[in-house]
């Protein structure tokens, strides 16, 4: 039986590659830079407000700022605005923590029709799941390396 590899017609694939439209890299980079920058500026504004207004500092301060940004990301997703920002900005709105909020809230909304347990709750991490898995795995790895490093030096 033929497998997908047997079907590969390299001449055809090269030809397709040669005529396929390319992503406009410069435009994508500029858009991602300015939108991502604005999101970070908003975060920094909240940071200053909490630091100088409420007198928070250290871990407490950064947790509050993250919480506000996650809330805003989730809210804008629910209002149907964030996907439009994402379509325009690409990586600029995916990389900040608001993008993470978007990647959790959007499947939660999408799969609501399949019920709260098997839909919303089960499929909530369908996009963000890998980020969490590899995030935790890599933090454990770094922690072990750090621990060993401290013992040696």
């Amino acid at each position, binding site marked *: 039986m033929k497998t997908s590899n047997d079907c590969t017609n390299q001449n055809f694939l090269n030809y397709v590659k040669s005529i396929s439209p390319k992503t406009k890299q410069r435009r994508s980079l500029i858009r991602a830079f300015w939108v991502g920058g604005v999101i970070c500026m908003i975060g920094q504004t909240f940071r200053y407000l909490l630091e100088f207004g409420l007198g928070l500092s250290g871990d407490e301060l950064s947790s509050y700022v993250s919480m506000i940004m996650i809330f805003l990301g989730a809210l804008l997703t629910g209002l149907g605005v964030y996907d439009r920002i994402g379509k325009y900005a690409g990586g600029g709105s995916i990389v900040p923590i608001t993008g993470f909020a978007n990647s959790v809230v959007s499947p939660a909304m999408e*799969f609501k029709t399949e019920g709260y347990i098997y839909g919303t709750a089960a499929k909530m991490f369908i996009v963000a799941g890998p980020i969490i898995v590899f995030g935790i795995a890599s933090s454990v790895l770094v922690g072990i390396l750090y621990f060993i490093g401290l013992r040696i030096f």
Partner: protein
Amino acid sequence: MRRTICFNNKPVIIGASSIAGPKESEGSIGKFIETTLNDDMYGEDTFEKAESKMLFTAIKKAVDNAHKKEDEIDAIIAGDLLNQIIASTFAARNFPSAYLGIYNACATFAESLTIGAMLIDGKYMNNVVCSASSHFSSAERQYRYPLELGCTRPPQAQWTVTGAGSTVIGAKGSGPKITSATIGKVVDYGVVDANNMGAAMAPAAADTLITHFRESNCAPCDYDLIVTGDLGTLGSRILKDLSWEKGYDIEKQHVDCGELIYNLCESEYQGGSGAGCSAVVFNSYLMERLRENKLKKIAFMATGALLSSVSSQQGDSIPGIAHLVVVES
């Protein structure tokens, strides 16, 4: 081996109806679409139910347009893109007719026309309905990402059409006639990019088209139009190149439903796709032109990319298929 069938009894298209969502209705063929929706939920609470209701409406109106009663329809042949073709089956449970559920991805509509014409030509049945549907939001959920996820689409991506089309074929009556059909075979050139379905389907389209020309001894100039389903801008160019390579120049006659359906702008990139794409265009614009006798003979070839979300995640390539139906006014 022969894949082209000539219908000697010439099954007649006695009724047609199309329905489409807001985005399609604003497009270049919007004014030909019979039922246009302002709301892509169509008053239902899920997109799947909305798709099924669209298909139901398309079938019902097509039967009405053919001046037939529901119990005069012997069979309904329908398909869509959802898992286990639920949009079609759930629509078909509203009708007393026999039901054949079919799937050939976006080539479903041409497949249903072919089977329908065979049933009529073989005198097994008198009236059959051939339908297909797709819905942008239900297809996105199944094949891609949640709707609200903020991500960009690559430039070779297409936009699934929200719409459905139905055609009633009868043994007697007046209207355009289906004179022959060429059944496609599965062709795979090893394209793995699920965002580039035009490139995956174009070799199958070229294969079916060239087989049709050879087996029925005709040339591209015998047709007023050679209509492909949803190759998109890129896929259309590949089809033209591939058939030119084999000595058939279809530049003048070729038009693609995917390119036709939207006012092509940035966000749809390559144009429309989905089983509904060719079904809507055939049952609106093309039908109108055939009835007016402005088009005398067309080759309607819907193309399908036979992938599933599982096969593409497992790294398999995308097999394509194309079925061709010849319609004469």
